[in-house]
């Protein structure tokens, strides 16, 4: 085989971030693009995820912000005529679309070769029955598994294998539709649900309690194979690997086990003829050397991104090169630059991954973790002992915990949590040790290997040691080696964090900087990939020269995802251009910012005050940029300033004047700028009095929070009371503010850059949804289509006054309410915002780069068009409600989306339709279910229902809506709510109707914006999500979507590259 040199390759991205498929594919796609471009190959990228680095101007040659559907991709292929396609860099989404293109004969018709792993191998790895048969041929054990396609067959299969069984759905990302089933009744319910979305479901042998081990394997077209990394899940089988705490390399495997599984991995990968990268997952019996292969992912995955970062081996780049026909021995280890890429990294540290959940955001959500993925992001901690990485890692998740112990929480039902794990399990284990439980007793409850349990116990014991003994150099070093932060120690010693820090520095107890070099120090490596540890006496590097620090964004979570990573990458690139060296601090393995070739020095470490100061004091940089990484970085502003760190850009005092709701509201009052009536929260009675004065609904807003955590709308006194309680819990340091919630207003956002208080560049967007929906969950339109020019002018003037008052230098995002040509400011963020990449790509002006230049004091002169454009862009939220069982998929003041997409259109409706399709909606084929709560909304919706009716859609409606439609001569089928009384005998139940698969779209407009009640509406929405039927729950969206689908067909959507707009 020789090196392939296609002229043009089409690469499929993964679309909006959702649970099970997140930012890791920006990393893998970006690396693939680099690998291809180095060869002089033209790259066409299709990905509607506008917030990615891979969709930057300097990445792919042509970029299409379009839905990833087979029809659309076919049209792109027809237009671009690429000679090859890459399917394995865009997650399950890209893989599934690719297979569909092959099935439809599109690839053959247009002469497009699939590079890398052949599709026949992908099909084997994806079809579990085929897979099992193939592995049997080479004597590789797989879990006993029976594929079924009907409920009856499923029940029979389960009887044969014996309960409990494991149920898995084929062709699913992140184990969706999977779970342990213990009896027939449960099975029947789950099968009904799973078979509604997947053609095939597997009934499998249950391997709960077995060790779960993964290998990342690379194979070239010369049949050379290496396993780049192995990983062990601390949480044994039964908990999805995406939900598990995972350590690399494996900790409890002997040489024999390690290499037996390695050999099986290689044998399997050779048999499947994988070319590129592949992940293989095993269950290993902890009491024998029996193993089962659980699954093979014949593509880059979340695990491979983690393995890349854990080892320094650039898996995605290598996979792309191998797809072109290179052999591993042709390629160099990109860290040492001299040794071969055919090798397996030797780690001299351990890497620990901890998932980041956001289940608290969804009140009704089930917080247990199991074989389905619910986490929205992850972190990776590097260190030289388990205690060090575990405690570091728990801090990195940024959930408010400061480590394993000394947290401000009590876990009462720890035994139950250990047995039926939730996101709190590791803390429950620590609690159990404190209560005197033994390792054996805990092991019996959770089957976590005793090795891990003994490490947790050691941390709990160390906590007691710290409490009871004086702090000496020796004891302090020991505490630090167990991963205790200064803050934790200060709590245990009843003093301040700062005093511990001073003492530690006086005693010269300092962390050392170590390099990740893939060869455990065996070969010299000029690597800039770094971490800090207390298990060392020598720094691997010396302080750098003229350099600046950029604080990264930490784990992906609701409200902070790939957008902030994009901003950080732009900042780092700009810093380089301006002649500085760059230092990046981040702890998220799914990011591009943590690729070691992005910055000059990468500290894969905590974004805590303590660690940032450690790095600052070691490196002596010229300054720190805190405004690109989102809320975590922003929140460090004041504390860093107090510690004499040079913060670049807007001063932390001014940031505080904006972030602190009370100070900000006072400022607006002084400036005489209108805002919703507000009151600082002093007491409950005051709050009630205020509510009485201005009238409900009332909005409760804590300070310094991201994505509206604990933000709530209270419609009555009872709710006001409980929400105030929550707000007080989430932000003790900072005051909450209550204000009048303005209903029916339009929301307008400005993203921009200022310098010394002067506006330099801005973009204005309007939301389609009325105010009340969190800006992260709203559809945003650029340029505004419905806002009066007069309003815009006045808003801008107000904006300029605020910028001046706060003397802003750097990025900002400000939100206004507009109603009846009146404007009110609701929020200001003095940092890059979630919408920066959207407005940057919509305007083709890089806001993050300009913000960085502003911060560096460069002269800014940007000529930009504001409204006179030949196109419209629309940003749509991407939700993952199907993963969060029980959560009400309603739009609300607290953010619930996990990602976003954006598309360009020649007109407004086209842009809306494209973006909604990119977020998973489709044009309904036949039937639409309507369920509209308020009468006024019914009236407002009627003209649009008319259009749908005329277009020939069959309408179903719930009781009230049905009566209303009938009154207005719209023939419809009446469905009864679950709670309905006096149902006729032949009444059709709404949920049954949804279950039966008759409905293509559900429009359910609830009475109020509350995510808190188990109403009939809740059941309709939840069922829609569980059966994956497109759901619209907002009136404005229902209107525009109805219009768009009546006026446009899929063929009307133009196939235009970004460069053509």
């Amino acid at each position, binding site marked *: 085989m020789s090196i392939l040199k296609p002229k043009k390759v089409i690469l499929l991205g993964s679309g909006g971030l959702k649970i099970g498929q997140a930012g890791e594919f920006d990393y893998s796609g970006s690396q693939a693009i680099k690998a291809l471009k180095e060869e002089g190959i033209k790259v066409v990228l299709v990905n509607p995820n506008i917030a990615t680095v891979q969709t930057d101007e300097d990445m792919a040659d042509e970029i299409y912000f379009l839905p990833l559907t087979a029809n659309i991709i076919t049209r792109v292929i027809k237009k671009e005529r690429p000679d090859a396609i890459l399917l394995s860099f865009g997650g399950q989404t890209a893989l599934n679309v690719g297979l569909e293109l092959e099935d439809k004969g599109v690839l053959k018709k247009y002469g497009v070769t699939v590079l890398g792993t052949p599709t026949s191998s992908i099909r084997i790895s994806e079809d579990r029955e085929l897979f099992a048969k193939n592995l049997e041929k080479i004597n590789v054990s797989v879990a006993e598994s029976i594929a079924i396609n009907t409920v009856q067959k499923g029940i029979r299969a389960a009887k044969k294998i014996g309960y409990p069984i494991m149920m898995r759905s084929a062709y699913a990302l992140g184990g969706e539709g999977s779970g342990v089933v213990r009896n027939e009744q449960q099975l029947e319910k789950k099968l009904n649900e799973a078979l509604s979305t997947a053609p095939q479901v597997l009934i499998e042998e249950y391997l709960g309690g077995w060790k779960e081990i993964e290998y990342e394997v690379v194979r070239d077209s*010369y*049949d*050379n194979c*290496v396993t780049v990394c192995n990983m062990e899940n601390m949480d044994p089988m039964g908990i999805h690997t995406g939900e598990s705490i995972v350590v690399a*390399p*494996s*900790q*409890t*495997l*002997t*040489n*024999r086990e*390690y*290499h037996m599984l*390695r*050999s099986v991995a*290689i044998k399997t990968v050779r048999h499947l003829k994988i070319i590129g990268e592949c992940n293989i997952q095993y269950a290993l019996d*902890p*009491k*024998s050397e029996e193993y089962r292969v659980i699954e093979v992912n014949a593509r880059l995955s979340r695990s491979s991104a983690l393995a890349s970062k854990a080892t320094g081996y650039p898996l995605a780049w290598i996979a792309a090169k191998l797809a072109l026909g290179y*052999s*591993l*021995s042709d390629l160099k280890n990109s860290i040492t630059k*001299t*040794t*071969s890429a*055919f*090798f*397996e*990294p*030797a*780690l*001299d*540290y*351990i890497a620990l991954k901890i998932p980041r959940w956001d289940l608290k955001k969804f009140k009704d959500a089930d917080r247990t973790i199991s074989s389905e993925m619910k986490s929205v992001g992850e972190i990776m901690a590097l260190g*030289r*002992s*388990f205690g060090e990485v575990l405690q570091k890692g728990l801090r990195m998740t940024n959930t408010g915990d400061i480590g394993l112990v000394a947290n401000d929480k009590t876990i009462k039902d720890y035994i139950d949590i250990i047995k039926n794990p939730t996101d709190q399990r590791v803390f429950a284990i620590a609690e159990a040790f404190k209560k005197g439980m033994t390792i054996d007793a805990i092991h019996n409850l959770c089957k976590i*290997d*005793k*090795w891990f349990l*003994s*490490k947790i116990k*050691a941390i709990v014991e160390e906590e007691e*040691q710290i409490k009871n003994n004086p702090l000496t150099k020796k004891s302090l070093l*020991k505490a630090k*080696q167990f991963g205790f932060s200064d803050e934790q120690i200060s709590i245990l010693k009843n003093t301040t964090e700062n005093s511990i820090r001073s003492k530690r520095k006086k005693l010269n107890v300092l962390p*050392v900087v*170590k390099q990740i070099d893939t*060869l*455990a*120090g*065996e*070969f*010299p490596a000029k690597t800039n990939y770094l971490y800090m540890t207390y*298990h*060392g*006496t*020598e720094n*691997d590097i010396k302080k750098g020269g003229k350099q600046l620090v950029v604080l990264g964004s930490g784990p992906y979570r609701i409200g902070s995802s790939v957008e902030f990573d994009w901003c950080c990458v732009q900042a780092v690139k700009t810093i380089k251009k301006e002649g500085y060296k760059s230092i990046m601090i981040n702890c998220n393995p799914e990011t591009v910012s943590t690729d070691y070739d992005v910055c000059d020095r990468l500290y894969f470490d905590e974004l805590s005050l303590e660690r940032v100061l450690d790095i600052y004091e070691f490196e002596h940089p010229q300054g720190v940029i805190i405004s690109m990484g989102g809320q975590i970085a922003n929140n460090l502003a004041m504390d860093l300033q107090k510690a004499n760190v040079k913060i670049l850009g807007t001063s932390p005092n001014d940031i505080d004047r904006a972030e602190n709701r009370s100070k900000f509201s006072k400022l607006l009052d002084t400036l005489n700028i209108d805002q919703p009536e507000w009151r600082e929260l002093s007491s409950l009675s005051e709050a009630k009095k205020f509510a009485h004065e201005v009238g409900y609904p009332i909005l409760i807003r804590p300070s310094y929070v991201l994505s509206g955590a604990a933000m709530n709308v209270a419609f009555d006194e009872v709710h006001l009371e409980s929400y105030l309680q929550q707000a007080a819990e989430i932000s003790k340091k900072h005051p909450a503010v209550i204000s009048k919630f303005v209903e029916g207003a339009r929301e307008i956002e400005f993203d921009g850059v200022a310098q010394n208080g002067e506006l330099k560049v801005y973009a204005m967007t309007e939301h389609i949804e009325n105010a009340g929906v969190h800006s992260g969950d709203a559809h945003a339109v650029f340029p505004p289509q419905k806002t009066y020019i007069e309003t815009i002018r006045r808003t801008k003037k107000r904006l300029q006054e605020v910028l001046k008052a706060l003397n802003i230098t750097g990025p900002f995002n400000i939100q206004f309410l507009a109603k009846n040509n009146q404007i009110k400011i609701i929020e200001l963020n003095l940092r890059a915002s979630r919408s920066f990449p959207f407005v940057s790509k919509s305007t083709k002006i890089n806001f993050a780069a300009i913000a960085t230049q502003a911060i560096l004091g460069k002269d800014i002169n940007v000529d930009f068009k504001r409204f006179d454009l030949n196109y419209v862009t629309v940003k749509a939220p991407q939700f993952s409600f199907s993963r969060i069982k029980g959560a009400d998929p309603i739009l609300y003041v607290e953010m619930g989306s996990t990602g976003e997409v954006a598309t360009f259109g020649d007109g407004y409706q086209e842009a809306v339709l494209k973006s909604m399709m990119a977020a998973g909606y489709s044009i309904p084929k036949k039937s639409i279910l309507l369920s509209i709560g308020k009468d006024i909304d019914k009236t407002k919706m009627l003209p649009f229902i008319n259009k749908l009716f005329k277009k020939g859609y069959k309408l179903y409606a719930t009781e009230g809506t049905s009566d209303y439609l009938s009154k207005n001569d719209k023939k419809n089928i009446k469905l009864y709510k679950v709670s309905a009384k006096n149902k006729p005998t032949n009444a059709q139940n709404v949920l049954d109707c949804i279950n039966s698969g008759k409905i293509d779209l559900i429009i359910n407009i609830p009475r109020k914006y509350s995510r808190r009640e188990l109403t009939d509406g809740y059941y309709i929405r939840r069922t829609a999500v569980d059966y994956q039927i497109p759901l619209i729950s907002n009136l404005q969206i229902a209107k525009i979507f109805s219009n768009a689908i009546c006026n446009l067909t899929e063929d009307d959507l133009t196939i235009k590259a970004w460069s053509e707009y």
Partner: protein
Amino acid sequence: MKEDSTPAKLILEDETVYNGFSFGSETNTDGEVVFNTGMVGYTESMTDPSYRGQILVYTYPLIGSYGVTDHGWESSELQIRGVVAANYQPDYSHWHAVKSLGDWLIENDIPGIHGIDTRALTKKLRTHGVMLGKISINNQNQSGKITDPNKTNLVNEVSVKKPIWYGKSKKQILLVDCGVKTSIIDDFIKRGIKIKRVPWNYNYLKELNEFDGLFLSNGPGDPKMCKDTIKFTTEAFKSGIPQFGICLGSQIQALAAGANTYKLKYGHRGQNQPCILANSKKCILTSQNHGYAVKESTIPSQWQVNYRNLNDNSVEGIKHKSKPFFSVQFHPEANPGPTDANFLFDEFIKTL
């Protein structure tokens, strides 16, 4: 780290001192300090006779996690003189474990030291080359020069004293034991080969015609110390009997053929050493443990380089151009490490 740990020091020959804590036996020791980058397989490496005379530094920071297993012993005893680790793990967990690593070391009177910045130490050894060193427990005085173990005949210490027979088969080989690993014997037995294992200096020349093949084993130290083995090997070439050597055996074969060997700066010790078959794209990942290597420029013209290290291009295997003699510097028997090269046993057996 246990509160009651006894302090200990690792002192290198240039008087660099690394402070740590004792685990294992509280006795002083000295030897050649070498590092190994493998992440699993400490039971295997500690019992490997090739490590005779050495103080072994593990670059992987956690050592002892799965205890001492009931399998994976490459000889009947601990061969190393001392262990250096970053974080010793007394709380082990594995169903195969019979005791903790610390207890095992105590039983065998071998000291360990942990709490050491093993990365700093490894970088030191990498830049300076392997060094002699000593472990000193509790600041006890330990005077005197360290004797270089490579100057003593380590092979004589680990080789069998009298011939031993293994297996039952028609095909039989003569295995010259310079410190053979148990896995090598197992690999032959598994393939139905009968073995006569003889001491390193055993004169087998008269009985060679009774055998189908000759095997030269791995072992510790400088190959040039094995004068008798080299002499007999040279003679054995004349008989044309198929010959296979591993590690030290490869160096002995090269010396017997007239090539020379040299000491590598810090050796190859790990489980991720990449090798490529000459004139091909076929790569294998190998387990290695050697301080000496064959000097390419001295290889006689009837011989050729068969495997090469992809990282530093050093010779990893040689082969006679026309006769069935070959050897490899790496360990096809693995244990510890990857099993990619295990097919070489089959290749040898095919020539018998």
